[in-house]
């Protein structure tokens, strides 16, 4: 039967949603290693160079005994710092390995199931929903909820609370009007290099905002501070961001009371810029870690709502083909459709309904004189439960009673 076909699990394609799950720890591992390399590179070459220089100086007698000891101490301190950092990177590495292992295990469990109706599949799919929900909560910035949900469901290894928590904190700082934290993120370790590879404008935009703030408060700060900032951080990029640099120059010449009158400058002073920067940061963060730009729950929902939706779900006739009305939702009536259920009904309004090329109706349909049709088996069972006399049936929704000989067979081709 065709039905068998549609409940069979296509493992490879069923995991479309779950690719980021496996990818993120690997991305983070790579980032972790890059940062480790960066530190070793930086401090290692310092130690090597310093040692070489000190040795030469010492041979030539250009350095005092005391200074040699001091230099050695500074090298030891540096290397201890490197060791401390490497230890932290190593712990992070172990954590990420545990994450990846748990995820591969979780996803391969699916290969042990062959049908959607498998009981094990339900459990697996529930875990997936919890993962999707946690991802959504994290992206919305509801970190405590996400943490609580992950804990309650024991899926800490399958979600990335810490990664998003860190991101959200920086994002929140931007929304509160502070660029420091985001700038620190941009320039930490090797992120700068990676951002340059992606042609990201994040750092420039943050510097630009710093400049705007300096100009805004120029009466309190030293007047040349804004200019110095611009010289250092903005002017070198005038070929890449000509418009921004031009506006930056213009802004400096604008008396504060006139700014509101020129649309372009008014925008620069607008608080909405912080929202823009926060969104830019989020987008940059996600693409740096190869995270999907939108919550996976959105993808699952838009696809799922469409697939489940029928023209009846938003029908104007409350009693038509739609779900049985609540008071009659007996065990005999079909279960309430998730799209008709209040939770999702409004949400499903903007998605298309599913395309069907075949009719799906109850077997042995019988037409009642009131225009409603039900399957023969259900009508008979309901009549028995309602204690009707032989040869009578009762409408499952309206409760009208009819004689069996008033019924008519329905042919659905």
């Amino acid at each position, binding site marked *: 039967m*065709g039905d068998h076909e549609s*409940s069979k699990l296509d*493992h*490879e*394609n069923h995991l479309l*949603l779950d690719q980021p799950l496996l990818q993120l720890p690997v991305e983070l*591992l790579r980032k972790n290693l890059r940062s*480790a*390399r960066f530190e070793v590179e930086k401090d*290692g070459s310092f*130690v090597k160079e310093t040692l*070489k220089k000190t*040795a030469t100086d010492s041979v030539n007698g250009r350095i005092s*005994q005391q200074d040699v*000891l001091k230099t050695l101490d500074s090298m030891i301190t540096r290397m201890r710092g490197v*060791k401390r950092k*490497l230890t932290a990177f190593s712990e992070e590495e172990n954590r990420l390995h545990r994450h990846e292992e748990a995820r591969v295990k979780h996803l*391969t469990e699916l*290969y042990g199931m062959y049908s959607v109706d498998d009981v094990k599949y339900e459990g697996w*799919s529930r875990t*997936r929903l919890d993962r999707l*929900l946690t991802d959504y909560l994290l992206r919305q910035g*509801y970190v405590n909820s996400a943490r*609580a949900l992950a804990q*309650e469901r024991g899926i800490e290894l399958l979600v990335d609370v810490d990664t998003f928590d860190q991101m959200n904190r920086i994002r929140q700082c931007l929304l509160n009007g502070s660029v420091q934290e985001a700038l620190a993120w941009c320039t930490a370790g090797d992120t700068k290099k990676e951002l340059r590879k992606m042609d990201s404008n994040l750092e420039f935009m943050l510097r630009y905002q710093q400049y705007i703030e300096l100009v805004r408060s120029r009466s309190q700060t030293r007047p040349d501070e804004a200019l110095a900032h611009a010289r250092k951080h903005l002017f070198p990029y005038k070929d890449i961001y000509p418009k921004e640099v031009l506006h930056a120059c213009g802004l400096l010449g604008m008396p504060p009371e006139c700014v509101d009158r020129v649309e372009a400058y008014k925008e620069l002073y607008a608080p909405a810029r912080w929202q823009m920067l926060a969104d830019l940061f989020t987008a940059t963060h996600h693409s740096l870690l190869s995270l*999907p730009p*939108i919550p996976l*729950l*959105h993808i*699952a929902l*838009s*696809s*799922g709502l*469409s*697939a*489940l939706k029928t*023209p009846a*779900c*938003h029908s104007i006739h409350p*009693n038509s083909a739609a779900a049985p009305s609540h008071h009659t*939702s007996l065990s005999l009536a079909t279960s*309430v*459709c*998730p*799209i008709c*259920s209040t*939770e*999702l009904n409004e949400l499903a*309004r*903007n998605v*298309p*309904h*599913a*395309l*069907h090329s075949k*009719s*799906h109706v109850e077997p042995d349909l019988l037409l009642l004189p009131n225009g409603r049709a039900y399957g023969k088996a259900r009508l008979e069972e309901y009549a028995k439960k309602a204690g009707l006399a032989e040869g009578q049936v009762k409408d499952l929704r309206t409760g009208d009673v009819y004689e069996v000989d008033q019924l008519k*067979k*329905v042919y659905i*081709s």
Partner: protein
Amino acid sequence: MSLLELQKELEKFNRASKLTLAVQDADDLINFLVSAREEVAAANDPHTTSLTLTKLQNPISAQLDAINSDLGRVHKSQNAFHKALSRSLKETKGTLPTDHDPMESQTALINRAIAMHLLREGQFEVASTFIGEAQPQSETSESAAQARRQPPSITISRPDTPPDAMITDADIPSDLTAFQSQALQEKFADMYSILTSLRQRDLYPAIGWARQNSTELEARGSNLEFELCKLQFIWLFKGPLVNGLPPTVDNGISGALKYARDNFGRFQHRHLREIERLSCAMVYAPNLTESPYKAIFDTSLAFDEVSSSFTREFCSLLGLSAESPLYVAATAGALALPNLVKWTGINRAKNTEWTTQNELAFETPLPRSMLYHSIFVCPVSRGQTTDANPPIILPCGHVLARESLQKLAKGIRYKCPYCPSEGVVKDAKEIIL
């Protein structure tokens, strides 16, 4: 290569060298430096110093190289695993449709759905955290506490302007929807406050609700009301030391007895046996833990159990589906996604968005258990019937869409496309499937 083979790669990856080696080598390097320093300090003689420093150069540079090659090995194993991962995902074709997100502007509705999902799944702690967090104005702890009492994220802000891609014929009057959701919001507020009381071991609000709805509950075959009363009896029975209620005559064994006299009468018909057991347990009051009634009086899980069974009954009486809609939708979403991905992959070049139509342009086969409505596809037009174009049954028993019949008919007469019978259009009647 599938994920199953990735497992082997993962084992290899886990066994491969890691950063711990680099930490060790860094430690060795520090030791070189430290011992050199000691040497220099001990000798305190320029000649030894320059000799030590010169001799130190080679080991330090070798050690640095060692650290770098440690990192190189980690890099190599990471690359190998990364490649294996890409290979294993290659069979999964296509990329996620992220260009166009119909859910983007629906945060309020999604939040509402999640809140309802968490409530119905019994994750009350998470739900209350979520409602507190998703509620933008609740900054202070006081308003957060208020948010606890009346779950506000269930407040739905309906989109002011309905999106233009609408089902042509399915606009429920908006005031009706607003009314419905308002009522629902109050119901959930009730449910939430009852559950909060339950968590504080106060059963009375729940009992009150169960009594109000006893007819419906009984029709559903639910014992909720009795279970609640029974737990109340046990709770009182345990006395002030356990339940923390004031030690009056209404508490402890006397209170439990009084409660039983006042309340158990109504259940005698249905639950006589259990009431008898409860009364017999009285005899063992001094050492219940040793008695055969120990299990009945163990309340460690009882409150959680009644809480979840209360939630279930509450949802059923509200007409909410038994399964969480969010769960069904997400599962259906994963099942339908491959076809969506395939379609968006093909149509990306044409820049058509899949949500601008009323009907999906591709089929998304779901298992039978996920079909909730009768679906009638007109055998003539091959389209699904809608409110505007309902199914019509001909006197011969064959069913068509109304528009198809109108096209087939010549004047007022038609001929059935599936059997030899002919008839008059007005004899064909609308059918509700």
